[in-house]
Every structure is written in structure tokens, then in C-alpha cells.
């Protein structure tokens, strides 16, 4: 195909393509559109429609608990309320810090794991398969598992910490201390998501040709130089994918927090998605909740665009 295309191009350049070929191409295109139509319609129904509806709601008063009050246009009031809300600002700060810490940790550890799995050793296939297990466990289940493991009465964490007797062992991890609660959330979240990063980066490593490393070695590059000058630049596309996915997941973190702390102690582990849940489900406020959702979409888009721009392969 690759050698065929330029030849055909050359043949057709001087004049118009034969009529038959043109209509056949158009028919092919139409058939193609027809084939993807169901998927596109479904995607629009579950993404574009809710997005537009949510945007519409965010400019309205719409609270289910006050069904007797009119669903009226309120302009940007939901947004001004949100921007001046200390609750929202605090949740935004927590979400951004959590996102920054988890993605740096996940990418660094995931990259290490990927480099390890890329090497040839006995049991490599088994290790590759088993690394995926945490990622395959639903977050609700893994959060419950970790909550149990950190339980001061039944969990193994305090059991082992108690055996070596550090001063801070036998403590209550969840809801009795802000930083300990975050540690547990962080552990549960990373345990589940590092394998995902590792597998994406491993796929990226596998498409780097060996010849490039050989050339680097011949030029006298040390292993560190080969990693910095060859591996990292060529891993960039995979890194962008891993970073975008992990950032979006971290920005939207909800289930692990809902299960483990319920946002506590106080509101100290409440993130933007948790606040969104509180607004939609508990307060049944679709207008204000819509504004919080839309800001989450904007933040996610800004991050994604930033990654694509700054990690674009240099030409």
C-alpha cells in the first residue's frame, strides 16, 4: 500500500480521475459514514447531549427539592456563587494537589515498573499479567479492601507496624487525622492506578527500535544518557497518553474518597467531584451542581490541551 499510493497519485495528477473511480470513492465514503453512524449517534447521546444539557442547567435555578419553584434563568449566578465559595476553592485546591502528587508518583513508579518489565528475565510474562490485577479490580472494591487493611482492629497494616513498634503505630488511619486519611487514600489510589501507567509505558517502550540504543552505545552514551536522550524522548507519545488519562482520573477522584473517608475528617478530603456529588445527590441542586461540573470539564480540557501542547514531539 505504501509503495502503491504515490504511484497512483502520480498517475492521476495531470488530469481528473476517471468518473467511475470518483463515484466509487464517494459511495465508499457514504458507506463508511453509515457504518460509523450508530457509534457516533450513541456517543453524541451519552456525551454531547448531557454536556449541553448540563451547560443549560448551570445557567438556571433547578433544585429538585423545590419542585414548586420555577426553573428560571439566573445568568451566571451559579458561577459567581461557586467562585466566591470557600468550600469550592478549598475543594479545588485539594483536587489539584492530589492530582499533582498522584500523577508524579504514579508516572515515576509506573515508569520504573515498565522499565523493569521491559527487560528479559524469567517469569516476565507472569509479572506482566499479575501487575494488571489491581487495575482490573473495581475502585469501590479496592477502596473497601484498603479500608479494611488500614482498620486499626482488623487490618494488617497496624498489625505489622505494631510488630516493629514505631511510635506512631496502632493509630486510627481514617477520619481521625487529616494527613493519615490522605495517606490511605493515596495508597489505595496509587495501588490501583500505577499498573495502568506501567502498561501504557511498557507498550511505548516496546516500539522503540533496538537500533537506536545500539547507535547510542556506539557513540559512547552511558545508560543514563541513553535513558535521557533516547528512551524519554521516544516515550513521549506514551507518556502523553498516560499523563492525560491519569490526570483526568485524578481530577475526578470520587469513589475512593466516598468509600474511605466520606470526605472527612470534616471536609478535609472533599474534592471537586465529592462536592459535585454533595450538590447533585444530597442537595439535589442541578443548577449549582451543573456549574461545578462545567468547571471540572474546563479544568480537564485545560490540562489535556497543556499536555498535548507541551509534550508534542519536537520536529
Amino acid at each position, binding site marked *: 500500500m505504501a509503495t502503491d499510493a504515490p504511484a497512483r497519485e502520480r498517475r492521476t495528477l495531470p488530469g481528473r480521475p476517471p468518473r467511475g473511480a470518483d463515484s466509487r470513492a464517494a459511495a465508499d465514503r457514504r458507506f463508511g459514514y453509515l457504518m460509523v453512524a450508530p457509534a457516533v449517534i450513541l456517543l453524541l447521546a*451519552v*456525551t454531547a*447531549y*448531557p*454536556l449541553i*444539557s*448540563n451547560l443549560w442547567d448551570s445557567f438556571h*435555578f433547578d*433544585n*429538585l*427539592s*423545590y*419542585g*414548586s*419553584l420555577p426553573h*428560571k434563568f*439566573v445568568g451566571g449566578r451559579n458561577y459567581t456563587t461557586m467562585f466566591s465559595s470557600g468550600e469550592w476553592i478549598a475543594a479545588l485546591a485539594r483536587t489539584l494537589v492530589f492530582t499533582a502528587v498522584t500523577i508524579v508518583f504514579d508516572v515515576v513508579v509506573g515508569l520504573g515498573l515498565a522499565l523493569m518489565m521491559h527487560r528479559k528475565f524469567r517469569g516476565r510474562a507472569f509479572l506482566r499479567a499479575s501487575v494488571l490485577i489491581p487495575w482490573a479490580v473495581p475502585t469501590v472494591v479496592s477502596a473497601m479492601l484498603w479500608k479494611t487493611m488500614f*482498620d*486499626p*482492629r482488623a487490618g494488617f497494616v497496624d498489625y505489622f507496624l505494631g510488630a516493629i513498634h514505631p511510635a506512631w503505630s496502632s*493509630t*486510627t488511619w*481514617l*477520619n*481521625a*487525622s*487529616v494527613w493519615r486519611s490522605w495517606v490511605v487514600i493515596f495508597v489505595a489510589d496509587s495501588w490501583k492506578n500505577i499498573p495502568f501507567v506501567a502498561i501504557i509505558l511498557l507498550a511505548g517502550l516496546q516500539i522503540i527500535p533496538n537500533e537506536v540504543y545500539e547507535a547510542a552505545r556506539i557513540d559512547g552514551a552511558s545508560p543514563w544518557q541513553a535513558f535521557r536522550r533516547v528512551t524519554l524522548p521516544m516515550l513521549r507519545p506514551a507518556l502523553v497518553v498516560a499523563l492525560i*488519562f491519569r490526570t*483526568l*482520573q485524578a*481530577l*475526578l477522584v470520587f469513589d475512593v474518597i466516598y468509600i474511605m*473517608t*466520606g*470526605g*472527612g*475528617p*470534616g*471536609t*478535609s478530603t472533599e474534592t471537586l*467531584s465529592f462536592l*459535585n456529588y*454533595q450538590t*447533585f*445527590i*444530597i*442537595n*439535589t*441542586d*442541578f443548577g449549582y*451542581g*451543573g456549574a461545578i*461540573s462545567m468547571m*471540572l*470539564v474546563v479544568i*480537564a480540557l485545560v490540562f489535556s490541551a497543556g499536555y498535548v501542547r507541551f509534550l508534542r514531539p519536537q520536529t
Partner: protein
Amino acid sequence: MVWSNTVLWSNKSRMLAVVAAAAVGLAAAGCSSGGSSGKVAASAKQTIVFAESGLGTEGQQTQVAISAFEKANPNIKVNVDVLSPNSTTYLSQLEQSFTAGASTPDVFESDVTYPAKFAQAGWLLSLNQFHPNMSQFFPHEVAAALFNGAPYAVPWFDNPEGLYYRTDLIKTPPTSPAQVVSDAEMAMKTDHSLKEGLAFEAAKYEGAITAFLTVDSAFGGKLDPANLDTPGNAAALAWLHDAIYVSHIAPTAVTGWQEGNVEAEFVAGHAAFSINYPFVESLATAPPVKGNVGYIPFPAGPGGTPGSALGGEMLAINAKTAHAAAAYKLISYLTSAPVETARAIVTGDPPSLPSAYTPALLAKAPYFANVKTLNSYSAPRPVTPNYLTVSADLQNLFSSVYASASTSAAAQALKSGAAAIAKAASATPGS
């Protein structure tokens, strides 16, 4: 596009709500012989829908009572719609039906905290037209059934939260909060199989509010969102806080405990005292707690009254129903003394009528005598249409206090949080 699916869950929920509402509407069309046009007389042949969350023996006993009702009223057929046993999901299911303007369920089970919110939203039928005799029920639960002075629900059963203690370790029940602490300390010294002196719900959830309410009046406190920062409330919250950080009769683990965890600790013989609901009495069936269970209102301190928190369920009617008369007839039947007594024997749900605590009931389950005593003290949670928002704020406040070792944590939290909670309670949406 992970974000687009996840961020917009809210919209999907809403779409689901519409679909669910449509389904409910279709079901209503199929089930309700009278539809929503016009009112159907109680004597007409009709089908009504009753929504409840009861599973297991509770669900079975409801079905038994409904079968007896249908036999006594052959013109009325009752379809039971069993919704989620999870209270948050149950509430969402009801809200979806009401928001969609569905005429079913015609009659439904309601937590004691729902009537004010639902009445404010215009979803409940005022029961004034039926002239219910509310004075026959425990007055504290009736208070939670009223909105702007009118009855919107009828108490069905009444779950008072109180103080459990081990009668083998504590020979005479404590008569003050200070004595609870000293008795707990003494019990922990004498019985080394105890893991704590006191177990209570301090996790960030609704139970933290009822646990607080159980001790609140003993210190002269009152859970009034408009006036939260009072010496009584501060003393009650400080007492619970100090149980964790000063006297250490409660472990820090209570910050993650809900009523199930508290029950497990007490039933396993790990706790000398615990704050919990009546159902625990029937579960204390193994040593060392078997036969050694006392259940009392939380003992009053100076200037206070014995404490208990009101829990329980009511029955209410959908404002859009076409079968109000038949629905009220069902409510009257389910809340009659013999039916409540039969339910208490089978399910352990404490009757909402003092007259249902018959000698026959007390002979079969003697602990109902204690429950009846507690019911005369039980304090309702704030009756406000914004209760769920107030509840979330209170949970945050209590949770932050229980996570702080500072002895002034309770006073400081009440001082800084009271204004926001007062605002949440009185907020008028859309203004």
C-alpha cells in the same frame, strides 16, 4: 474521553431520573384504576401503590399486614413497591417520582427527617382533611410529622437511640454523664476483656448526629440549627470528644464507626457502654452480654434532662394521588395498635403508639418496657426543609471535632460553624 463520561454522571442520573419517572408513570397508568384525574372515593374498587424500603422480616410483616387490610377492605388492592434498602438511594427514588409529578406511590414509608422537606416541595398531601388523632402517638415523633403546624405524616414506628450498659459490670445504672465516665473507667480496670468503655457512632454520617442528640439534652443542649452555639451543645460535644481524647474510654477508632460497628463491639462484649438503637437488645444472645444488657436514656447532668434521639419511620401520602382516601385508610390500619404490636413482636420495630406496648408485647419481649421509657424522651432532629444540607454541615462539624485532640475543639467548631449552619437551615433557594 474519560472525563465526558464521568463528569457528566450527574446528567446521566438526571436522564435516568426521567426514564425512571417515565417508568413509574407507566406503572401508575397500569396500576391505578382511577388514574390521576379526579379523586377516587374510599369505597370504590381501586388499586393503590405502597412504597417501602423493608426487606427481610420487615418486608414480610408489611405484606402480612397488607393482606389482612385487603381482606378487610376487598375493594382496595395494594401493590407493594419495594424500593432500595439504602436510605440515600431510597430518598433519590422517591424524589425522582415526585419531581416527575407521578401519582404513585400513593402512600409511602418516610424517614422522620423527610416530611418537612417533602412538604416544602409540595410533594405531600396535608392530612388535615382526615383529622388524624396525632395525640395518641409519642409526641416527639409527632413533632417531626408536622410542617407549618399541619400533619403531613403519621408515625409508624419509633426508634429511640439510648445508652446500653453491661449490668454484670455496672451494677447500678449511672445517674450522670460524669458517672458514665467513671463507671466505664472502672469496668475497663476490672474486666480486661473489654476493649473500650464506650462505643458510639462518630463516623462522618447521619448516625453521628443521632449519637450527639442522644447525649445533648443531658447537658441542657438543644439541636436547633438557628442557635447551635450554646453552652449545652458545647458541653455535650465536648463530652463525646473528651471520651476519645481525655478520659480515653472510647478509642479513636470510633471516628470510623457506624451503628453496625458499635453494635458489633457491644454484642461481642468489647464495650461496657454503647450508644445505639433498640434492635441491639434482641441481638445480645451470647455470653458475656446475654442477660446482662441495660438500656436507659442517657443520664442527665446538672440542668439537663435524660437524653434519647428520635429515629423511626412514618407513613405519608403523595400530593398527586387520586386515591387519598384509600391511602389514608391503609395508614390508619397500619398504625393501629394491634397491627403495631404484631409488627413489634415479629420485627422488633418499636410501636409509635404508647397503647401498643401491651402486656402481651412486654411478656414476649420485656426490653420494650425500656424502649417505651426512651420514647418519652427522644428528641427529633431539626425539622426543616433544608435538613439534608444541615445534616451534611453537622456531620462535617462533628467529624472535624472528633479528629482533633485539642480540648477546645468542640467549642471552637461550634463557634465557627454555627453561623453557616443557621444560614443553611433558613436558606431560601432561588433568592
